[in-house]
């Protein structure tokens, strides 16, 4: 195991976060605060409690998930796409490191960044609404698993993308709608029955629901199912990454 290489990639990626502090931390925090002001305070004050939780508090887990998903995805995708774009990937390919170590470095850094961000948003949220965390360990488990899974997915997108447009398309056209339709801002019970069934096919629903359960013990689906879904998702992403390195897809001829 070439720990020194993993550390080098990790440190290199983390240093990019400090260099692009505004883009990495401040802008997601700002946009989340806007959500709180608009949905939590302005509109939320006119929405009744959902299953005993005030609307402002109800949306906190969903908002953290929204940032966690999009940030994990874009950090990891950008992290591996950029060396491909500039050509510096030659160095990764010619270095004495295994694919596992490459993934560990990039995905580890991307997941760390989004976890830091998640923590910051949680802290920001506590300034606006009353928060209680019923199951802190489960909450942490959801955060970590989601960050890793979506960083892996981002890594896959970064490898697959051969243009900046493609890099943006999945987060914009797939993830954002899934998060909005995945019960981040509402309980599934509030939907007409047919849409409740449709929503069950949205994987993000399980993440948001399980994550929210760790806060308020309020969930749309059983927390066990939520954990199982994220586990399946994680394994699928690992398998795809494994296949990418086995075949050299988009990386190596």
């Amino acid at each position, binding site marked *: 195991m070439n720990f*020194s290489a993993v550390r080098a990639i990790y*440190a290199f990626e983390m240093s990019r976060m400090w260099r692009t502090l505004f883009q990495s931390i401040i802008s997601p925090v700002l946009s989340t605060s806007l959500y709180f002001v608009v949905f939590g305070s302005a509109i939320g004050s006119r929405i009744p409690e959902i299953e005993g939780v005030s609307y402002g508090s109800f949306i906190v887990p969903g908002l953290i998930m929204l940032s966690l998903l999009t940030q994990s995805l874009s950090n990891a995708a950008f992290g591996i796409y950029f060396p491909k774009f500039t050509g510096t990937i*030659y160095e990764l390919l*010619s*270095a004495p490191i295994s694919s596992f170590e490459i993934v560990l470095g990039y995905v580890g850094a991307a997941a760390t960044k989004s976890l830091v961000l998640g923590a910051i948003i949680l802290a920001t949220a506590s300034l606006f609404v009353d928060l209680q965390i019923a199951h802190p360990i489960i909450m942490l488990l959801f955060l970590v698993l989601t960050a890793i899974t979506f960083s892996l997915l981002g890594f896959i997108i970064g490898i697959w993308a051969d243009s900046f447009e493609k890099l943006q398309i999945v987060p914009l056209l797939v993830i954002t709608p899934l998060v909005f339709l995945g019960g981040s801002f509402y309980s599934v019970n509030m939907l007409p029955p047919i849409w409740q069934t449709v929503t069950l096919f949205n994987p993000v629903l399980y993440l948001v629901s399980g994550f929210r359960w760790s806060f308020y013990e309020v969930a749309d689906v059983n927390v066990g199912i939520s954990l199982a879904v994220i586990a399946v998702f994680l394994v699928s992403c690992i398998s795809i990454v494994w296949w990418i390195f086995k075949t050299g897809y988009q990386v*190596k001829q």
Partner: protein
Amino acid sequence: MLTAYDIYHLQNKHPHIPTRCAPRPKSGFNSMLDSASPLIQVKNLEKTYDGGFQALKDVSLDIKKGEILALLGPNGAGKTTLISAICGIVTPTGGTVTVAGYDIIKDYRKTRAMIGLVPQELTTDAFETVFATVSFSRGLFGKKRDDTFVEKTLKSLSLWDKKDNKIIQLSGGMKRRVLIAKALSHEPDILFLDEPTAGVDVELRKDMWQVVRDLRDSGVTIILTTHYIEEAEEIADRVGVIAHGEIILVEDKTELMAKLGKKTLMLDLQQPLKEMPDALKRDGLELSESGAQLVYTYSTNGERTGITALLQNLSDAGIRFKDLNTKQSSLEEIFVTLVHEDSAKTNANNPAQAQ
């Protein structure tokens, strides 16, 4: 450019010139390094890209420890593919490569740790500082952080005063040095330089050659690709010529020059001649179209060049000349000859592609 005449004569005069590497004798050593066994051994290496383009055809090549080997060839000959295959950037479709006895696929950690690569394109992390990017490379290759070593490397490449600059602020030549510093950051035994002086001005090119020589003196084995013959001639110990994905020849530079080297003696006549007098007629002597110059081509490796006899005959015939000069054929001419021979052969084998 050489004329058909030159090529014809070169071939006839030197039937012993090898046009392809002789098969390597089987060696009893396998993995242990000693002075007799090559540091890098490329055997029957093949690479066919997904699109069907065959970039390397059955390439075999031995690289000795401590030498500077120049791989010479026109654009698209397969130089970069060969280097990329050895370094792990492209996966060979056939054949094997060993570095110090270790297989590049099975023991990739060992072989890659020994190799530094300077790519052809100036690919850098534009927004990083020079120091950070070189330290990163060192870590990536599994070495412990060592700021003193990085400092030494940067100083030896005159980059120390730029250590805190972002790479994007540097000139092209400086960026090339940064890439060399990155390649040297993990103290490699072997350095691959892919077209190190492409797009570099004359002054800097000379600096670069000095850097390469200094590295060789410090014990690093260097393989560089170039399409500047001047470069190979200036710094290489051995020269390998690649064309159409095949190694046409690998020779000691001085031997190659001596074997293929020919000189021409040009005599500017006081009075133009209408035709060559019978007394002067001999192999290698030609009268220029204007009749004002006699051009004599001779080999430098024979004991007798025939110059004395020629001058004697001129004087006997009463032909006076006002000036004379001699010219040594350069590696460039040799190279052109070899590549032409090879394409002639390729075309002969595949008449369909000959047009």
